[in-house]
């Protein structure tokens, strides 16, 4: 079972995040970055699958030099090898271009041994668009089973992937034949912390570095200029406004219930 997990290096959501004033892209220099927390679930799920059976987990990231840290973390958790696509031309790429680079990288990984499963997080914690997994599946011609809160692999490499996808009112059970792409939610597992041994072992694991030329991608297909979407302007969020006070005129309970249903808290 060969699994590729796509991971993203994102600015730490705990820190004060901002944009570059020059081109409205995410500021990655002045904020500490890390492996997107939502992608840790994808890494964990892939590790669980190979630990229960056999196989190898390759982590793939597209990002600047610092993104090597995201790969390192996944390798510390237990992934077997890493692929880092880094090319200055990629800066400012949108989801469409990112999915192109990921797809070509996965094809290249597949040249060595066929990829049976691609696992991704449900969205990045910086862009939070959540569209890359579907675009990627489309480009690779794979069935996309997304937002999995549970994943079961039956029959190994040539078998099936069955997921649970939780909706507001129902849970769908969906089965896809492998190879397939699965995106997972933060409900699917509890990502492990890297162990001391994992940290030491990660140092010896192979990481390939590829540029666009290695993937046969023309630089004009990616980057800010090729983007279908662009951040036009950004502004700091206004400070939180004061909460609403509900005066109780004998109907306080009713008003509170109405508030809760209106905002879909219940």
């Amino acid at each position: 079972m060969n699994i590729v997990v796509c991971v993203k290096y994102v600015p730490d959501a705990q820190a004060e995040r901002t944009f570059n004033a020059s081109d409205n892209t995410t500021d990655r220099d002045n904020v500490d970055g890390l492996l997107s927390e939502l992608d840790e679930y994808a890494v964990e799920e892939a590790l669980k699958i190979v630990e229960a059976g056999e196989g190898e987990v390759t982590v793939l990231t597209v990002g600047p030099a610092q993104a090597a840290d995201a790969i390192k973390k996944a390798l510390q958790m237990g992934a077997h090898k890493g692929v880092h696509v880094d090319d200055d031309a990629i800066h400012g790429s949108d989801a469409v271009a990112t999915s192109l680079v990921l797809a070509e990288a996965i094809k290249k990984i597949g040249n060595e041994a066929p990829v049976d499963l691609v696992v991704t997080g449900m969205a990045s914690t910086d862009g939070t668009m959540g569209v890359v997994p579907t675009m990627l599946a489309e480009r690779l011609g794979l069935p996309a089973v997304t937002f999995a809160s549970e994943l079961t692999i039956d029959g190994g490499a040539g078998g099936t992937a069955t997921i649970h996808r939780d909706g507001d009112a129902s849970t769908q059970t969906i089965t896809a034949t492998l190879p397939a792409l699965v995106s997972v939610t933060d409900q699917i597992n509890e990502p492990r912390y890297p162990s001391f041994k994992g940290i030491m072992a990660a140092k010896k694991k192979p990481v390939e570095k590829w540029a666009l030329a290695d993937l046969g991608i023309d630089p004009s297909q990616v980057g800010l200029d090729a983007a279908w979407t662009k951040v036009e302007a950004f502004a700091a969020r206004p400070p939180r406004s004061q909460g609403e006070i509900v005066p109780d005129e004998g109907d306080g309970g009713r008003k509170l219930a109405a508030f809760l249903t209106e905002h879909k808290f219940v």
Partner: protein
Amino acid sequence: MFELSQDHEDFRAVVRDFAENEVAPNIAKWDAASYFPTDLVPKMGELGLFGLVVPEEYGGAGESGDFTSLCVAIEELGRVDQSIGITLSAGVGLGINPILTYGTEEQKQRFLPDLVAGRTLAGFGLTEPEAGSDAAASRTRAVRDGDEWVIDGAKAFITNSGTEITSVVTVTARTGTTAAGAPEISAIMVPAGTPGFIVEPAYHKLGWHVSDTHGLTFEACRVPIDNMLGEPGQGFKQFLKTLDDGRIAISALAVGCAQACLELATDYAKTRIAFGRPIGVNQGVSFQLADLAVMVEGARLLTYKAAWLKDELHAGRRSVAEVKHAASIAKLYSTEAAVSATRIATQVFGGNGFMEEYPVARFYRDAKILEIGEGTSEVQRMLIARGLGLPA
């Protein structure tokens, strides 16, 4: 020389993440209830924290681990909570270390794999109600009866001795008299649940509420003679040797405490407004924080210098005497710095610093024991003075 390796820093990042996610959100609640979080121990085991100085055959890190890594882990846990830090420090230094250093292969196989995995904990009982700094005054006795030791006596303040997962406590006991008439003290392993091994109710402590501490009573407690750890009559000497490591570990715990105080107090001084300005603009406040920063730096350097010496000793490149001296110096300075740090931090927090809602209050209560456990400040001064060649 003046920074830890990238491996140590990578490991620090993981332990910090663990402490902030698994400990920080629960600690106030655990502390208020004096609750020992048994479930946390195997999680610490999965991280590899108990195996950093243990060979691979018992589940440890083997050659890739070192004592410095253990200090990093203790510092980072201690930065979030001191009780969790001491649970690790004592778990390794007092629980695992004596068995690893003096145990027979059979004893090691029996206890170490579970201890390293965090499935069990072990304690070491040296202190008695009437023998602390003067540990040689031990009164607990073990008398041989056939192929058993019969133990009678009492131990005081024993860490990790009464948890649900405590598997064994090693105790020092008089097993005879030397030719010169001095008491012969040996170390004997007493498995939890042995009849006559009574774990007294937990103490009501000023601090370290989340750490497990009990008095132990032994009433005609019988264990097989094979439970002796190391050589007969060597119990005291063995224990003193174990203490050097423990002192450096306590020093690391103190660094975590002082570091937490520095971070908490600096943040507070930037945001707390009095007289229309952040309190940190006043030199009365900022100079104290500057002093605190110096203490943290000094404590950290002394601690990791001692840890480095310990690792060098392990590699055969340094002498025991050098490590002992450095360990006492680090322990003395760091623990006193930590106590000062908590005093400064609570002062910066004003009335809030006296409230349990603010972690500085917990650190204030927790710090004091650092100057007492594993050799008081006075004992460290005695040892340092002796190292200077002054008459004992």
